[in-house]
């Protein structure tokens, strides 16, 4: 637990969070390891976790019939992924797959939702941090949709 507390308190996502709240998070945290190629979650399954990647790489993808998987985003060391745990109906919208041996800390979403309801200061802290993540990903998705590297001026 002490190790988990240290790792979480040093993670950029939780920078500036009070010790009391870190300790509450640690109560919902555990270490996980995924083999290369292993699915961490699949679209439509209950979204009851989110992840802090410690080593490795995870692809967030969707499966398109007759085309196969299309990768939407990758996540690597030092990043988090998975925010469906905080938005009803708490189902994953995409698949997540480790492309290499990946070590992560996972937080139990159900446990965390309960703690956030009990301690609104914690809930607000978590919400602020996830709002930034969601905004950043929305912006990145818009840039991807612009297809900015397509053909430029006709010369």
């Amino acid at each position, binding site marked *: 637990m002490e190790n988990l507390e240290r790792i979480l308190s040093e993670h950029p996502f939780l920078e500036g969070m009070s010790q009391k709240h870190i300790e509450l998070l640690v109560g919902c945290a555990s270490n996980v390891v995924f083999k290369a190629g292993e699915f961490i979650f699949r679209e439509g399954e209950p979204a009851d976790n989110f992840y802090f990647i410690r080593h490795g790489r995870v692809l967030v993808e969707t499966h398109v019939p007759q085309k196969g998987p299309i990768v939407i985003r990758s996540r690597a060391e030092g990043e988090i992924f998975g925010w469906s745990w905080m938005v009803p109906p708490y189902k994953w919208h995409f698949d997540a797959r480790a492309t290499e041996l990946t070590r992560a800390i996972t937080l139990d979403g159900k446990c965390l939702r309960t703690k956030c309801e009990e301690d609104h200061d914690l809930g607000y802290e978590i919400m602020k941090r996830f709002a930034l993540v969601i905004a950043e990903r929305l912006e990145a998705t818009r*840039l991807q949709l612009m297809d900015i*590297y397509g053909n430029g001026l006709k010369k």
Partner: protein
Amino acid sequence: MASKSEKLIEVVSDDPMLARPFTIRRVIKESHDTFSMELEKPSGRKDFNFLPGQFNMLYVYGIGEVPISISGDPTMPRTLVHTTRAVGTVTKAMWNLKVGESIGVRGPYGTAWPAAESEGSDVVLITGGIGLAPLRPVIYYLLANRGKYGKIVLLYGARTPEDILYVKQLEKWRARFDLEIHLTVDRATGAWHGNVGVVTQLIKRSPFDPLNCVAMVCGPEVMMRFTVMELEKRGVTEDRIYISMERNMKCGIGLCGHCQLGSSFVCKDGPVYRFTDIKDKFTKREM
């Protein structure tokens, strides 16, 4: 004393609007629509010296002329290299040229990346799409003078894995321990195991010192706008950010006005600008 005809030749050869014929020595297909041409100077001419970031006007005889950045090694000025995407009339005609044929060249024109001025600092090069081509000369330069710089980091975003330029060279550079390269693509299938997402997302976790770095950015303007924002979030000040602009350049010497950007001419005052010098114009939609 020179004869009248010799004087005439001298005057003509000094004409910045006169393209000189270079011979195509090698064509390298970089991707499905992008290629590099190695050009050889006309016999007897001196080396083609240029600064990283400068461009030439390339003339496909009978078709037209386009500004193309020099993408070769400034420390090896005997060979002139340009990387081009075949998108329009002139560049598609260029794509069809064969080894041994001629192409007109005039230049070099424009401003350069602040390579020498960046000594002692980390250098972060951020690029997207074909924007890697104008940055490649500065990478050659930095590596040729490696001891004078701190960390050198290249962040490169491409549309898909198939659109990545200079694949073999990137692999060689990646094998070095003194140059850090991070690639990402906007779209990928399951066969790609690298980063997926826009290049701006790489800035956040990139290992350079924001308080002692120079950032050189080249790519589509939208990408550069978001890149500047991310660099500022990391703490890089605007005076340490340089961008390369693209406009419809025709004369290359600030006469025709096609590339005018407010009071500035991109061909002459750019294409490389310190961000603070162009900030006001950069964000104006009318420009």
